[in-house]
Structures are given as C-alpha cells and as structure tokens.
C-alpha cells in the first residue's frame, strides 16, 4: 500500500469514492452522529450558553498558557508525578523509550491518543523491540489491519463487521478457526478476552489526556470502554501524552467543557468513564501505577500562538466537525492523508506539517459552514481554511493554472465595465450553446466539474442585470 499523503488528496479522495466497502461503512455514520448530537443539545437548554462559556474558558487559558502550564507542572510534581517537556515528536518518542527501558518494558498497552498518532509512536516502539498493544476496540481493529485511525473518536469507522471478523481470524490463531464471528457481540467478547490478557501482562500503560487541570496537577481521560482505565491502573508505570493546549485552570472549568464534549461527540449526556488521575498510587493504595509521567508535547504548536490560527487550540477533539462534514462523509478519513482528518484536520494539518505539504486540504471545502455551526468551541473553521488559502497564494504554492486564473479574474473584477461586458458575453454564449437541452455537458477549463454533472444553461442575464431590474421594480412598488 502506498503511504497516504495530503499531497495526493485528490487521488485518494477519488479512490475513496469508488471504494465499495468504505462507502458501506460510511453509510453507518451519516445519520447517526448528527441526529444524536442534535437530540442531546436540544435536551439541555443551556447548551448554547455553555458553548459561549467554553470558548471564554479556552480563550482565557490560551492567553495565559505559559502561566497555566507552570502552575499545572508544579501541582503535578507535588502529587508525585514527573513532567517531561518535548519540543517535537522525536523528542517525545525518546522520552517514552527511556521510561519504558527504565521499566524494563516489553509490552505496552495504549489507550486511544491522537498525540500518540501524531508521534507515530507504535512503529517507533516496535523498532525498539517493545510491543505496543492498542486497547480501544476501534484502535485494536485498525492495529491488526495495519491502518491508521480514520476518525478522531471512532478510529475504525471505515471498517465493516465482516472485515473485523477477518482480522480476528487472521491474528487470533490460537482460537478454533470455525468459531462464529458473524455478530457484533461475538467480536466484542473475543476482543475483550484477548485484550484482558494483554492488560495484565503490560509493564507500561500509555494514555492520552482530554484535559490537564492546573489547579490540581491532574490529567483527565474520557472513554466509553474502560480501556483507558485498565491501561493506567494495571501496569506499574503510567505515561500520559498531552499537547500543551490541553491544560485548563480548574475542575469547574473542565466541567463546563465536559458538558459539551460527549454531547457534541456521540450525543451522550456524558461518556461512560471520565477519569481524573493525580500522581502515582498513594501510600496505602492497594492498586494503581507506581510511576506517573506526563509528556507535554509542543510539536509546532507554539509557533502559532499570537497568530490568527491560535483559535484552533480551543479544539476539544469531539469530532463533531467530521461527523457533520459532507466531504468527510463522502470520502472518510484516510483520503486526507494526515493524522487529523476532516475540517479540524484541514486547519490543524497545515499548521503541524506546513502549508507546502498540506495545502490541498484547506482547498477541499465548499465552505458550507456546518463544521463551525456545530463546533462546541465555535472555532471559525471555514475562516481559518480561507486564511490558509491566502497564505498558500501569498507563498506562491498553488499550481500555475490556478494562479493565472485567479490573477485574470482579479484583474477583470477591478474593471467593472469590462467585467460586466465579459460576464454578459460569457452568459449569452453559454445560453446559446445550452439552448436546446437546457444544460451544458462540457465547458472549457471546468472539465473536472462537468465530468460528473451537467451545468444548467444560464437564463435571464447576469446577476448584475437581474439585481438592477429587481431594484428598480422595488423602487416602483415602494412608491
């Protein structure tokens, strides 16, 4: 399999549209998430006001991020935790490796972590003879299939039941090959049993963090399965991977964000397990990890502070923008070729990888605005995508044809008389060509568009002409 890349977005998207299994899987999500979120939001009259408060909490925290990180670190250390700072993914990987080596680790269980994905941690651990075991059911399925997550909260959303069964038969070779694996419960029970053994033999458990609490030095994870909890309470060492912007001031502030998170993500009132962890096990505690490490990863984020892109750091990774995105719904997550797919990925990926590498993504949007509408943190995703397009243009990264076309258009639009004349001429020409069928089957320079649909033939003149006519009619009626 060729490695996925944002540079090949168009080809990957085209392939995704033709992938029958993927299209079958995406059919499962298109309605479910949207309807559930709407019901959950409607059930809480304060939902919109909570969104405003959530935005204010995050904006305040981001404006004082250095201070909150210092406060968080102080409390985490007081509670017996060890805090490590990493400028980039490579440094973070080395810290993980050092902790694992010190613990003599051979098996590492992992809770779902997007920061772990950003670090490309699994291949690195394998290369160093440490076996990473993903424990979130979706992550486990894609680990067996040698894939990356295609959704930030539902990593195996692109996989169908029969494909899960195939993966289990291939890897769980100690089990009878003719066992029934047709139904969801069979698959779940088998994964539970297989992973239970791995939980118990693991030396180190790695989780992400939904929030860090400056007030108490705690990390919070939110899961439905309980895998993150078994990952952190059974092994001797617990490592938390978190990006800088995960810190919030107080438990009360985290609570406001928690009231938004599950409702926006899955439409649940609350996810099943929200776990607040503070330091290692205490004297007298009968269980829990003896060591508690937190790795604070920057990975290009600090370069964006004080810029217009800072707003993206309000993101709480609920996935609502993916669930509501018509582009994501059509092609799934892998076509983006980046760790973070969907609208949030279109804004975050150019920041993390460079606009030169991920420039196609902010262009792959019709700006329908649904992502911004449902984002609990009111991140202006379309606006930020537009800013990336501007930056791409300023840095002369678009193809020559696009630059030439835009340049011509900009030249014409600054000359209103010429523009109107040109538009009238083009419209009349198109109306003439489409006069018989009422539509055009092909158009020069728009072959990509007309390859899939016909363009209705223009009727009744240009927009300017229609507008003028309408205004004069209204003036007459007003009188």
């Amino acid at each position, binding site marked *: 399999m060729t490695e996925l890349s944002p540079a090949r977005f168009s080809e990957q998207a085209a392939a995704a549209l033709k992938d029958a299994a993927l299209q079958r899987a995406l059919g*499962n*999500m298109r309605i479910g998430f949207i309807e559930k979120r709407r019901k959950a939001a409607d059930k*809480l009259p*304060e939902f919109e006001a*909570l969104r405003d408060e959530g935005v204010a*909490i995050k904006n305040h925290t981001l*404006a*004082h*991020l*250095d*201070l*909150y*990180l*210092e406060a968080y670190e102080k409390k985490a250390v007081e*509670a017996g935790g060890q805090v490590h*700072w990493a*400028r980039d993914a490579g440094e973070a990987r080395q810290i993980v490796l050092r902790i694992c080596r010190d613990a003599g680790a051979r098996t590492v269980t992992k809770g779902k972590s997007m920061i772990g994905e950003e670090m490309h941690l699994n291949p690195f651990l394998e290369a160093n003879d440490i076996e990473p075991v993903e*424990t979130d*059911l*979706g992550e486990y399925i894609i680990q067996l299939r040698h894939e990356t997550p295609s959704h930030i909260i*539902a*990593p*195996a*959303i692109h996989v169908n*039941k029969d494909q899960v069964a195939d993966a289990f038969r291939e890897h769980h070779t100690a089990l009878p090959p003719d066992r029934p694996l047709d139904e*969801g*419960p069979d698959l*779940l029970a088998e994964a*539970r049993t297989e992973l239970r053994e791995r*939980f118990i033999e693991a030396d180190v458990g790695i989780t992400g963090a939904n929030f860090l609490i*400056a*007030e*108490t030095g705690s990390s919070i994870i939110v899961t*439905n*399965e*309980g895998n993150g*909890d*078994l990952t952190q*309470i059974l092994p001797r060492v617990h490592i938390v991977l978190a990006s800088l912007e995960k810190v919030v*001031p107080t*438990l*009360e*502030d985290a*609570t*406001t964000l928690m009231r938004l998170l599950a409702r926006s993500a899955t439409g649940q*009132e*609350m996810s*099943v*397990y*929200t776990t*607040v962890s*503070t330091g*290692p*096990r205490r004297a007298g*505690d*009968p*269980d829990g990890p003896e060591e508690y490490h937190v790795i*604070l990863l920057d990975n290009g984020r*600090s370069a964006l*502070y004080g810029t217009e892109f800072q707003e993206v750091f309000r993101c709480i990774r609920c996935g609502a923008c993916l669930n509501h995105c018509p582009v994501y719904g059509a092609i799934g997550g892998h076509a983006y070729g980046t760790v973070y797919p969907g609208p949030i990925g279109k804004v975050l990926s150019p920041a993390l990888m460079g606009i030169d590498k991920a420039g196609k993504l902010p262009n792959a949007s019709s700006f329908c605005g649904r992502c911004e509408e449902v984002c609990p943190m009111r991140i202006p995703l379309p606006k930020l995508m537009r800013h990336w397009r501007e930056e791409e243009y300023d840095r002369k990264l678009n193809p020559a044809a696009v630059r030439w076309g835009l340049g011509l258009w900009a030249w014409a639009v600054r000359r209103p008389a010429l523009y109107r004349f040109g538009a009238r001429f083009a419209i009349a020409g198109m109306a003439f060509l489409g006069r018989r069928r009422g539509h055009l089957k092909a158009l020069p320079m728009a072959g990509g568009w007309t390859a899939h649909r016909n363009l209705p033939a223009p009727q009744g003149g240009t927009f300017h002409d229609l507008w003028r006519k309408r205004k004069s009619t209204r003036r007459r009626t007003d009188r």
Partner: protein
Amino acid sequence: MNSREAILGDLRQKLNRPADGGAGAQAVAERLSAHRRNLIPQRGQLDRAGRIDLFEDYAAGADATVARVSSAEAVPAAVADFLKAHNLPANLVRAPDADLDTVPWESQPTLTLEARKAEEPDAASVTAAFGAVAETGTLVLVSGDDSPTTLNFLPENHIVVLWADRISGDYEAQWSALRDRYGEGALPRTVNLVTGPSRSADIEQTIQLGAHGPRRLHIVIVDERP
C-alpha cells in the same frame, strides 16, 4: 537551553509576558484559588427527592440498573437479588470501606464477600460511592486504601452502594465535597466519574455493552444513613 525553557520562553514571547508574569500572573493565581463555578444547568437543581429521581432516570438512561432500599439492612438482599437475576455466583469481592462494613452482609448467608482489590477472574464487585451527580446519572468513585480502583473495572458486574444524601444536582457540589475531604488543590490518585456500564460502538456504530469494563452496573441507592 532545555526543552521546557525553550517552549515556555517561546510562549512568553508570543504572549508578551513580562519577566515577573505581570498582571497575568495575578489573574491566574486568583482564578486557581477562587475556582469559581461557571454556568450550572438548571436540570439538577432540585430538592432531595427530585435529585434522587433524576439520578435514577439518567443512570437508567445510560443502561445502569437501579434498586432503591430504605436502609443499609436491606442492601444484602438487593445485592443477592441482582446476582440471582443474572445467574451469577454468590461470591463477591468488595471494597474494604467503612460504610460497607456497616452493611449486615451475614443477613444473606449465601453471599460470601472478600474485602480486597479485584483480580482475574472475579465476576462481581461491590464498592461504595463517594457521591453522585443527578444531572447526568453519574457516580463519583474515589481511590484510596479503602477503595481499590480495580474493583470498578475488572469484574464483569459492578455493584455500587450509594447513600442518597450524597447525590448532588451538579458536578460542582462534588468538587466542593472533594476539596473538603482532600484539601484545596489536592485529589486522591483516581476519581472515576462513571455513567452506566462499559460500552463500545466501534463495530459499525452499534452500541454494545461490556467492552473492557463491567458489562453490568447495578446501583443500590440507600435512602437513610445507618
């Protein structure tokens, strides 16, 4: 320069922070010590009876089962009923919790209980809740020498005894109770907020219970303190 200084230095510069932290440092210190409450949904702002009902509604909505008993004396029978209803063995592992000590377990001679942390293959556990939040039907469970966290996750069946007085309308009241117990800015190693039994929708977006944690969560609400 180490990474910590590099990252913080970069942030300070971008955020125009003066060397002594300036007014920002004061604002941050004040916000942390005040831990003011933000907007609290009206939903849970009810009297005691209303809170208990709301908690039960939302816990049941999250697929937990709930039994209500008048006193600790009735807890063993409620536990035995639950085990019988699901054809489960009558041996349990329980938290060595002082409140659970007040439950007259011997009134149900078939039940055998061991007070310890959970291990494979324990089938059912009993723990006591620190508190609960009516707003979403959520239990608040804390770790400690009397409350091993493994009991909340390893067994397939988790029974939680919840004294009704500990049900608050909102999360904020629970944070205050935790501060009263553990001190300002301090928490036990683990605080578990639990809303229903474990589940996964990772296979074709269909919810199935019992992913890695308990398949069943049974809550016994005790109306009166012993």
